[in-house]
């Protein structure tokens, strides 16, 4: 990492001109693949782009996946080889990808009203098309929107955001360069509540710095929840007006 790159200038501006508490440009679209899947969404957080397709609830493909009293969710994540700066093909059984899939699966098994669909399966397919930091948080947000589009009943939105700590400054929603320069955590909350569904920290941080990072990530999650909610309502309104389903 070149020391010429100023992650956080003394005026309080980051590399892309944001302040410390601003999330990246958030764009999302719902029902982008109406034919190939029951629910779909595309999320762009800054330069990170994730596509999510949801199929289900449907008959399970494998008997071993059948749970008698609730739905089972299977998550597949594909990272496109062109998603990063260097072209690199990630094998499907890469442990990082598997860990992300398993986290997302457990999260949504709890967030979806699971007992309404016993002996059914929901398939979630995620494609990371471009990575610029915050891949896991974009995947979680995309999955929430796609499940809503598929009409799967959920208790609340599941929203995720990252926050990092550079010396003593908290930064919200990091991009790739910032992620490699400081310890950061990924947090997913249940809607606008203070309940945390996922918390992941991978670099060493002083304990006293943990609380401001978590507080910032939580407010970022709540902000993203509002952004997703407005998009979902807008989409619902336009569908009602069109009269199509």
């Amino acid at each position, binding site marked *: 990492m070149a020391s010429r790159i100023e992650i956080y200038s003394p005026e309080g501006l980051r590399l892309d001109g944001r302040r410390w508490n601003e999330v990246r440009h958030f764009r999302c679209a719902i029902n982008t693949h109406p034919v190939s899947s029951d629910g779909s969404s595309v999320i762009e957080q800054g330069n990170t782009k994730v596509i999510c397709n949801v199929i289900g609830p449907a008959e399970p493909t494998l008997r071993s996946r059948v749970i008698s009293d609730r739905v089972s969710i299977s998550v597949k994540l594909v990272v496109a080889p062109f998603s990063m700066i260097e072209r690199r093909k990630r094998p499907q059984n890469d*442990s*990082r990808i*598997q*860990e992300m899939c*398993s*986290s*997302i*699966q*457990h*999260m*949504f*098994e*709890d967030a979806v009203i699971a007992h309404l669909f016993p002996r059914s399966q929901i398939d979630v397919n995620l494609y990371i098309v471009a990575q610029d930091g915050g891949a896991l948080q974009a995947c979680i947000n995309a999955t929430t929107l796609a499940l809503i589009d598929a009409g799967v009943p959920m208790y609340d939105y599941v929203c995720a955001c990252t926050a990092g700590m550079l010396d003593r400054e908290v930064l919200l929603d990091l991009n790739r360069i910032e992620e490699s320069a400081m310890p950061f*955590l990924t947090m*997913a*909350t*249940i809607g606008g*509540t*203070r*309940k*945390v*569904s*996922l*918390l*992941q*920290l*991978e*670099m*060493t*941080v*002083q*304990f*006293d710095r*943990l*609380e401001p990072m*978590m507080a910032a990530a*939580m407010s970022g999650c709540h902000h993203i929840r509002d952004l997703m909610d407005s998009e979902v309502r807008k989409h619902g309104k336009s569908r009602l007006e069109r009269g199509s389903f």
Partner: protein
Amino acid sequence: MPRDLTPSTIENTFVLKALTERIRLDSRSFNQLRDLDISFSSTDFGVVDVKLGRTRVIARISAEISQPYADRPYDGLFIISTEISPMAAPTFEAGRKSEDELVISRIIEKSIRRSGALDTEALCIISGEKCWAVRADVHFLDHDGGLMDAACIAVSAGLLHFRRPDITIVGVGSRREVIVHPITERVPVPLAVLHVPICVTFSFFDVRKASAAIAGLPGKDNMKEADDDDVEEENDSSTTVLVDATLQEELLRHGYMSVTANTNREICQIQKGGDMPVEVGKLLSCAEAAIMVAEKVTKLINKRLKEDEARRNVGNLLVEARAENDRYIV
């Protein structure tokens, strides 16, 4: 064929009902660790046997000379292998990674490798050509919950205990040779351990879900108020937090979080899976509790290391032969 470890309904209701009455089956308090026993091998350096309650894990540290990666010529290699065999429990299959195994190996990776517990730059011999490749093999002998915690303690203690052979580099330029001195010739050298990461797993129980699971049982269904000496400080009493769950508690828990901390009040990693949403203040107090556990465990590791050192250096011959500073973290 892996066998499922699902306990019977009657066992489940018994354990959950006891938890609602704030009783653990082995009468520990909610934030008490099981009895931890660390013993080092008297013959080999770097072999540690850790017993956490009935969970038993052995870690073996070994080192050999190898070539560094092309993009990191100044770093040595450090590999941790955590393959779980059916010896630990019948659910684990040899050769196939179950989800539990994946979680354990990822958390050990993050706790020890990514946090930089071992200084890989000190493993370099000739940059770009030769370096030490340190390998930690973790063998899980008995699974009674807390495999991650026991494995992390075992590898950390093993890295502190291990001694690699001393080396000398003779010659210059391209005709340099590395002479590895056997232990009989020169005193072996300890590894450069920068900090001692200790992993602590917290298990979450949703009291409402637990009550629903045991509903219909005769007798009163009362829930006592939170004690003062418990982890939870918030008013939210709908989540019960247990430290260091046994296998039975692990199979019944609704969610978990594993925190790795060290004695420098640093948090090396946090992994809270998506299982059960928990209020954020509770997570912070769990992280603080992890630091206290890390201090206790590190003290025990150092105590055992000193005892092992005293056993080996009967007559203090090796101590007098050393010409280097103490690298232990006291």
